[in-house]
Each structure stands twice: as C-alpha cells, then as structure tokens.
C-alpha cells in the first residue's frame, strides 16, 4: 500500500465517521442526526483552516505560536466591525472622538519611535520619551473617555457599541485576516529574532490582552453582553420554511420542512467553508513547493546555514508568522459568522489554542494535508470524547450504589476528561509518532 493510498484512506475514515454520525445511533456514540454531523463537519472545516495556519508557522518555519485564540477572536471582531449596521447616533455622539483618540494614541507611539531615532542616547532622551508617553497617555484618555461614555449610553440594553460598516458579511473574512496580521506584526517585531521560547510567551500574552479588550471595551464589541444577530451569508431557516417551493422540494425528498431547512443552511456553510479551505490549501501547497517554501524549510532546519547563504532569517520568520496568523484570523471570522454571534466570554485558550496544536501535531506537522486531516479528526474526537468519558465512568462505577457520592462526583467530572485525553494524545503522538499521521515528505 503506497503512502498516497494510506493518506486517502485516512480522509475516507473521517468521512465514514461523519456518515455514521449522520445515519446510526449504534454504540451510543453516534447521534444518528445529519444536523449534528454537519455541525461537526462545519467546525471541523474551520478547525482545519486554523490548523493550516498554525502548520504554516510551525511546520514550515518552526515558530511556536501560543496565541491562536487571540487571532481567532480578532477575526470575530472583524465580523462585527464589518457587517453590523452602524448604531444610529453613535458616530455623532462619540465615535469621532474615539477615533481621534485612537489616532492620537498611535501618533504618540510613532512620535516616541521617531524621537528615539533622532535623539542621541542618554538621560535626556529617556526623560523626553517618558514625558511624551505620559502626556500622550493623558491626552488620549481625556479624549477617549467622554466618547466611550457617550457611545455606551446609547440604548445599552441592545446596542451601546459603535456597530460596524454594514458591509456584506463575506467581506469580513479577509478583514479578519488583516486584523490578525496587524496584531501578528506587532508581536513578531518584538519577539522574533530572540529565543524561540520568547515568541511563545509573547503570543500567550497578546492573546490574553486581545481577549480582555474584547471583554471590557463595550463600545467596541459590547463586551460580555455579546453581539448577537450578525448577518448571515446563507438564508434563514424561517424564510425557507415559509417558502412554498422549498417545502415542496423537501417533501419530494421525503423530508419535513424543519429538518430540510436546517440541513440546507448548514450545507450552505459547508460549501462556503470548503471553498475557503480548498483555496488556502492550494495556496499553502504552492507555497510549500515554491523556492520560498524550500527556503523556509531550510531556515527551519538550520538557521545558521541559511543565514550564511544570505537569507534574512528574522524577516522571513516575521513574514510567515504574519501569514499564518492571518489565516487564523480568517478562520476566526468564519467561526463567528457560523455562530452569527460574537461571545467574547467563551474564548478559552485550552479550546482555541491548544486544541489546534493537538490537531497540527496529530495530523502531521509540515504537511498541509496532515493539518487538514488533524483538524477534521481531532475536532470529531473532541466532540465525542465527552459522551465516551461519561460512558466509561458509568461502566467503571456500575458496581457502586446509585446514591454513592463518589459516583456522582465522577459522573459530574467526566466532562473534564476531554482535556486529559487531548493532553495524553499530544504526548503519545509526540513520543511515538512525532511526524504525525501524514508525515512531511
């Protein structure tokens, strides 16, 4: 059996799992509902895109990014800022001064950089830097705060944020990529070129910061009050159910209108996501095969040698770090579109950063198909480990009396088996099969 056949079989196996999920309730693991199967598939596709981005950074360049959650969340913010209609009155009330404050804040930092370039090093320069920063900060706060108050007081129960540009939601996906790329540029500029651990720690930090901004800046993202009802690129179920032609069509397939409409909508998302995934996969494959991809792998395998050949290692690292993060941003925007709500409270590093890492490592780092396979497979397992864990605990505790407190505690905690299982899987793959399911060629 050649490698190619084996790899195709692995993808087929994931497909079979999804089909089983849709058709059978045997074994108590599968739910036998196409809706559930498609839900898993849709998130699996998004996870595969994130894994593709991380694989670009880790597999091609050996960069360790622990801030995927932050880039994903920025993508989510992009959806709000692009596709929501502007809140009536927000721009006239305080939007202008917020924008002015942000520009001034950026200008302060720019001025500091300029000042440090122009002045000779010494105590005078340190003092001038400090003075500029302090003055800049207070001016920024003095302009920002009234604007924020004004925006947040507009109908706080429903809005209280500045809204967005009211553009089509599909446009938000590339915008999400751009936002994530911007954040990645800032991090890459500071942490790349130093020890590899530093990038990991800096990305861990930026993810926390992005999330605390989303949670606390109500004028921007409504914070923990969530933005709901984001526009969708696919029709609404209710409209479909009221559409006589659609109901008739569904009936001819032997489906009731309710099931048919939900499946139709989910299939719509599946098509969109598959298109994006295929496009990105194609680009990643072309990049991998191009001279640029070979250079990247040369840098990964021996930085000193690549440096001696005249390659600017830090710049190339910055480039690929930004590209990989941008892909995560696109995936984040897609996920928020799928949920049609932005819920900053639900972003959790274990789910959004470390799970993606498990996908990349299990799938095969350095191989784009491996990353995609890992994304789909590990997502399926992530969903299914919980019911499996509960089943396992039930079997183990079957001998105990029904009202035993230990049994109750174990059953209640079974949900946390997920983290344990994922960690174990990561360690086992790293130890015994470090190249993953589909190894790098």
């Amino acid at each position: 059996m050649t490698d190619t056949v084996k790899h195709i079989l692995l993808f087929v196996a994931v497909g079979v799992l999804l089909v089983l999920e849709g058709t059978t309730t045997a074994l108590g693991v599968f739910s036998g509902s196409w809706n559930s199967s498609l839900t898993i598939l849709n998130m699996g596709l998004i996870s595969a895109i994130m894994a593709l981005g991380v694989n670009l950074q880790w597999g091609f360049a050996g960069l360790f990014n622990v801030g995927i959650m932050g880039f994903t969340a920025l993508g989510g913010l992009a959806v709000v800022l692009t596709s929501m209609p502007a809140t009536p009155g927000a721009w006239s009330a305080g939007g202008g001064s917020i924008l002015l404050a942000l520009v001034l804040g950026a200008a302060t930092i720019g001025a500091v950089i300029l000042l440090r370039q122009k002045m000779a090093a010494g105590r005078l320069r340190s003092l001038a830097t400090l003075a500029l920063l302090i003055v800049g900060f207070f001016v920024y706060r003095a302009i920002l705060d009234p604007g924020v108050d004004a925006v947040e007081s507009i109908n706080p129960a429903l809005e209280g944020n500045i809204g967005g540009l009211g553009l089509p939601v599909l446009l938000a996906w590339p915008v999400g990529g751009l936002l994530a790329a911007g954040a990645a540029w800032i991090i890459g500029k500071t942490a790349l070129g130093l020890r590899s651990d530093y990038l990991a720690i800096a990305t861990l930090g930026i993810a926390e910061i992005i999330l605390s901004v989303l949670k606390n800046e109500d004028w921007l993202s409504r914070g923990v009050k969530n933005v709901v009802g984001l526009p969708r690129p696919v029709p609404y179920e209710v409209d479909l159910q009221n559409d006589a032609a659609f109901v008739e069509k569904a009936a001819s397939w032997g489906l009731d209108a309710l099931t048919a409409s939900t499946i139709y909508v989910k299939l719509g998302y599946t098509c969109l996501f598959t298109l994006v995934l295929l496009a990105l996969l194609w680009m990643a494959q072309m990049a991998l095969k191009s001279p640029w991809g070979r250079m990247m792998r040369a840098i990964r395998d021996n930085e000193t040698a690549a440096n001696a050949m005249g390659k600017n290692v830090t710049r190339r690292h910055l480039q690929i770090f930004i590209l990989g993060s941008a892909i995560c941003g696109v995936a984040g925007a897609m996920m928020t579109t799928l949920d049609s709500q932005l819920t900053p409270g639900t972003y959790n590093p274990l789910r959004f950063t470390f799970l993606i890492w498990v996908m990349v490592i299990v799938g095969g780092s350095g191989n784009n198909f491996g990353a995609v396979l890992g994304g789909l497979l590990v997502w399926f397992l992530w969903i299914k480990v919980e019911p499996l864990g509960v089943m396992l605990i039930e079997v183990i505790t079957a001998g105990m009396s029904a009202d035993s407190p230990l049994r109750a505690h174990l059953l209640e905690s079974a949900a946390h088996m997920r983290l344990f299982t994922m960690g174990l899987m990561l360690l086992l793959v790293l130890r015994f099969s470090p190249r993953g399911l589909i190894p790098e060629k």
Partner: protein
Amino acid sequence: MDFLNALVALTNFVLVPGIAYGSQLALGALGVTLIYGILRFSNFAHGDTMAFGTMMTILFTWWFQSMGITAGPLPTALLALPFGIAVTMGLVVGTDRAVFRFYRQQKAKPVVFVMVSLGVMFIMNGLVRFIIGPGDQQFADGERFIVSARTFKSLTGLDEGLAIKTSQGITVVTAVIVVAALFWFLNKTRTGKSMRAYSDNEDLALLSGINPERVVTYTWLIVAALATIAGTLYGLDKSFKPFTYFQLLLPIFAAAIVGGLGNPLGAIAGGFVIAMSEVMVTYAWKKVAEYVLPDSLAPSGLVQLMSTDYKFAVSFAILIVVLLFKPTGIFKGKAV
C-alpha cells in the same frame, strides 16, 4: 496629618497587597527560572503544577478540618502544606521520568520541550478539574486579620485604616523563609553547588563527574515545593480556581524574563516589579491625591490609569519593553 493619611492609604491599598502578590509571583517565577536554568526550557505546565499542588493542599486541609485538627489562629492549610508538597513532588518527578527524560536523552530542541510541557499542562489541568472541579474553592480559616482597619484607626486616631490580612503576613514570612532556604541550599550545599555548576556550563559539570539525572531530579523536587507553596499562598490570599492559576502563567513568565531567565535573584526582583506595577497602574489614586493635593487641585475622576480588568496588560507591556530593550533581563539571565 493629611500626609500621614495619604501614606496609610497608599500602604493599605498599594504596598501591602503589592508585596504579598509580589512574593507569590516571585516564588512562582523562581520555579520557572530554575527549570529554565537546569533543563533549559520554559515550562508551560508551571501554572497547572501550582494548581495541582494547591488542590492537594486543599484536600489535606479539608481532611484535617474534618478531623478537628486546626492551627489555631493560623490557617490549617499551613499544616497541610508539607503533605501537598510531597504529593506534588511525586507527580512532578513521575512526569519527568515518564515524559521529559526521553527528550533529554534525545537531546531534543528546546521548543520541543516547550511543546511537551504543553501536553503535560493539558493533562494536569484535566486532572485538577477532574478531581476538584473548575469552580472557586475557599479554604482559608483561622484569624482573618493581623491588624484590622478599625483597630488601626482607634490606635492611631487617623481617618484612614490599615488592614493586614493574615494571609498577607503569612505570604511574606513564608516567602522570606523559603527564599533564604533556597539560596542557602544553592550556595552552601554540595547538591546546590552542582546544580549551579550544571546550569552555568553543562559540559564542564558533566566532566567533573556531576550526575545530570540527580541534578534534574533535585530541581524538580525544589520546583514542586516552590510551586505548591506559591499556589497555596495565592489561594489563601485570594481564592483557588484552576483557570486563574493557568492565567498566572503570564505574570510569572514576565517576572522571570524581567529578572533574567535562569537567574534566581532576578526572578524575585522581577516578581516584585510586575506585582507593584500591576497594583499601581490599576489602583484608583483619587484618595491619595485628595490628601496630598490642595482642595483646588483635587481630581474629579478616579485617577485610575487602567481598569483592573487590564492587569494582564501591565505584565505584558513590561514584558514587551524588556524584550525590546534588554532581552537578557535586569540581572543578565542566560537567554538571548
């Protein structure tokens, strides 16, 4: 009088909490920095090691409480601490044998170690949530205050009160004892000296007959003790929640890097730098300003530089500044 009041307010809201938090961070950063010095990687599982150690201590505390054993005015957790440390030592050394040793023998790249520590973090996190659940746990008992605000006011006749919690007092005393013991161990004992030698120059240390496995084992034992103590003190002072401990990773790393990774003295200094800046940036200075400034200049707002929700941003900003201008940290760590 106004000046004294301002001083008391400053001590009460900034200095005391800052010093207590700084001691906790310093103990955590010492663990990270020791691992970095000896094993040469950033241990992402450190926050969850702290959580595991604290959880064990809490379980022992509950057991002692149920048997009616308490430490009088002191929290029972202090009695449970040695047992918590022992179990954590077992777990951590077991993890090293089962997981990390293989990669040491392979001479894997540091970034592989970091990734492996990520897997360990996952497992420990799952373990902690599995055993004690993801919720908040209070386990402080005994006397709540050493000095309460009311007694201080009646003693001094000032308008401002000064409260020192027992947990804060215990934190500082414990931290001083632990740090003194650690430095005595590193500087005076044979094992401590071999650890420093191994950290400074691995090849020379191997050449002079130092057993690397022994050094590594001792390092993990010390780190387990430091992590459990730091975690328990933090839990006594605030409360225990597994996710909070994971989030502590950022300030702890920042502290270790600010001081210079691999340098124990730097870790302590870094811990206090991070804690003090965090408390000072997120404190509302209105009260202090009102006492010090004349009435005409009294501020209208809270004079808070950043809301407390952004405390992680402070450690992150310091981290970025240090990486930009002095990547080796204040005390010349070993990493560039």
